[in-house]
């Protein structure tokens, strides 16, 4: 859990570094550090997802390059120079896409129910972590809640058959979704989070010190430091 949290933190930092890198070398190094952090943390699934998300972008860029090369066989060096020189529009595009993908994946691929403890391990304030984790769960559950509301209204005869009838009843559907989802979230705040002290029980225990954790922490800190240097050197 702790290693996973650190890997994701590095992934966010790596995403920022990629997005803000000044040249190709910084982009490539940042990318390698992100992948390395995921491997070191044993997060092979996470690494697979990063590669799955970013590889198509790189593949499209490569195809674009091949297409231009085929179209202008006489000017390969000129095209390459145009695409890869300092200030080329291709680089910022790739950086933005790959960096955003890394950041979004770091947060969105947290296993269900593990985002709050993850954010707390990363020392995020409890209120912010609650907001992010519960907001994420509400957003993820909204489509299911919406379709349940639709089914309930249909079972009461308030929504008719067909898409148009459902569209006409959108007000009632949203109203029921509100009652069944969001208003209950406020009840949780009172019951679960205040009265039951749920969040206090959730706070992560102090990490157990071990040689393996110590070694891994050193690697993570070094990787994070390298990324920080890259961010600072490549930033605007």
């Amino acid at each position, binding site marked *: 859990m702790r290693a996973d949290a650190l890997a994701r933190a590095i992934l966010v930092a790596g995403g920022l570094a990629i997005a803000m890198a000044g040249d190709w070398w910084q982009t490539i190094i940042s990318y390698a550090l992100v992948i390395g952090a995921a491997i070191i943390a044993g997060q092979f699934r996470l690494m697979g997802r990063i590669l799955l998300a970013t590889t198509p972008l790189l593949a499209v860029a490569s195809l674009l390059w091949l297409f231009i090369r085929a179209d202008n066989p006489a000017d390969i060096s000129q095209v390459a120079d145009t695409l890869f020189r300092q200030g080329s529009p291709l680089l910022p595009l790739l950086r933005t896409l790959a960096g955003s993908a890394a950041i979004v994946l770091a947060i969105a691929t947290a296993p269900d129910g593990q985002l709050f403890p993850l954010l707390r391990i990363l020392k995020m304030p409890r209120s912010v972590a609650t907001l992010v*984790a*519960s907001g994420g769960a509400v957003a993820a559950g909204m489509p299911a809640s919406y379709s349940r509301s639709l089914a*309930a209204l249909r079972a009461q005869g308030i929504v008719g058959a067909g898409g148009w*009838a459902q569209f006409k009843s959108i007000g*009632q559907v949203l109203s029921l979704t509100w*009652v069944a989802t969001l208003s*209950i979230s406020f*009840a949780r705040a009172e019951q679960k989070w205040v009265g039951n002290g749920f969040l206090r029980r959730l706070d992560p225990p102090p990490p157990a010190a071990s040689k393996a954790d110590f070694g891994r922490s050193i690697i993570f800190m070094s990787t994070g430091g390298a990324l920080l240097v890259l961010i600072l050197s490549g930033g605007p």
Partner: protein
Amino acid sequence: MITFYDGPNLSGRSAELRRFAWDKSGGTGGIYVQQMLAPNLSGMATTVSGESFLHGLAPGQGGQCHEIEAARAFIADLPREQSLSSLSGGQLAKLIIACAIGARPSRLAIDGLLEHLDPHNRCAFADFWKRNQSNPAEIYLSDNYGAPFPGEGDRVRRFSRPEDAPDLNTALRQLGDRLGNVRVHAPELRLDGISFRYSGKSDIFSGASFSFEPGVPYVLKGPNGCGKSTLARLLAGSVKPSAGSMFVDGRPHRPHRSDRNLIFCSFQDPLEQIFGGSVADYLRTLEAATAARPTFLSGGLDTSAAELISAMGLSEFAAFEPFDLPRFVAKRLAVGAAVISRSPWLFFDEPSIGSDIEGRAALAHLFSVLTNTGLGLILVSHGSEFDGLKDAQPITISAGKIVEGGE
């Protein structure tokens, strides 16, 4: 030891349970879980495994603690990757109870939640608690269904309703009396070879065939998650069967394609049903929508939304937002809505959950009257309160079929 809180609705049981659970004078305070299901969840997970993880019940979490192992065993039959929104009421109640135990509180207050469980799971919970007498937690329990609580050696604390509390049970009986002389005609329903499964799950119905006659109260029983609520959704056209046909008075009917009023479903969790800014808003909207629909019903109960509010003793709750209603009042409202629905068939999913003994008797009286009027009635219940209805026909869902006989 269990401390059993015994008393009628609106007697202050829930407030006392909360007070005891949340009293921090002796330490960190305890956990209170209530009858409405969703507010008990963390709100930070969308699947069984996520919620289990947050409460320390995932494999590898919480060490080898006996209570945690027992809590894990209690929910071992729940599919770990299933979304919380697709669990049945009973399955969700099991998960909530296991999560509360997994948190290892010093005090655990369970307010009516066990009423969602089928008899097997109620006994499983009682057995679990008896086997864990060394458990440091004290348990406070409110439950209207009775056996196996309170058991031998349990303490009982009795409550009584204050004089000035509204008497919804008498109002419900009077509503039943008022409808006693009404006669309507509802059509016969027949299912022929119906099959259905939710995406990624096993069959709930597999070639199910059954005929429902109006004027007979069908009491549907069965274990948690067997498909009782899904039957309501199929009849109402909220979901579409993968195979099979439905007939109304011998004529083919496709509920998912039809706007004609055939059945009204009152849900297990009333907050999945009641919408709008207030009780009055909800009933008015429902009344307007049903008035505009063609119906299979001949005749009517001739009760308006305004009359119903008064007749059910809900006047002082008329301006309440749905979520602010006391839970048994919300449940009662969900039942009352059926009366103004102009539907020939009424499906009540666990209508007596939350009602005290007197309330369940009043509900049985109302359902008896509604059956006598000629309406079609399907009642889901884990208890025995509707078994004594005249001509009651127990049915259950077994191996994907609807069959006669109880669970």
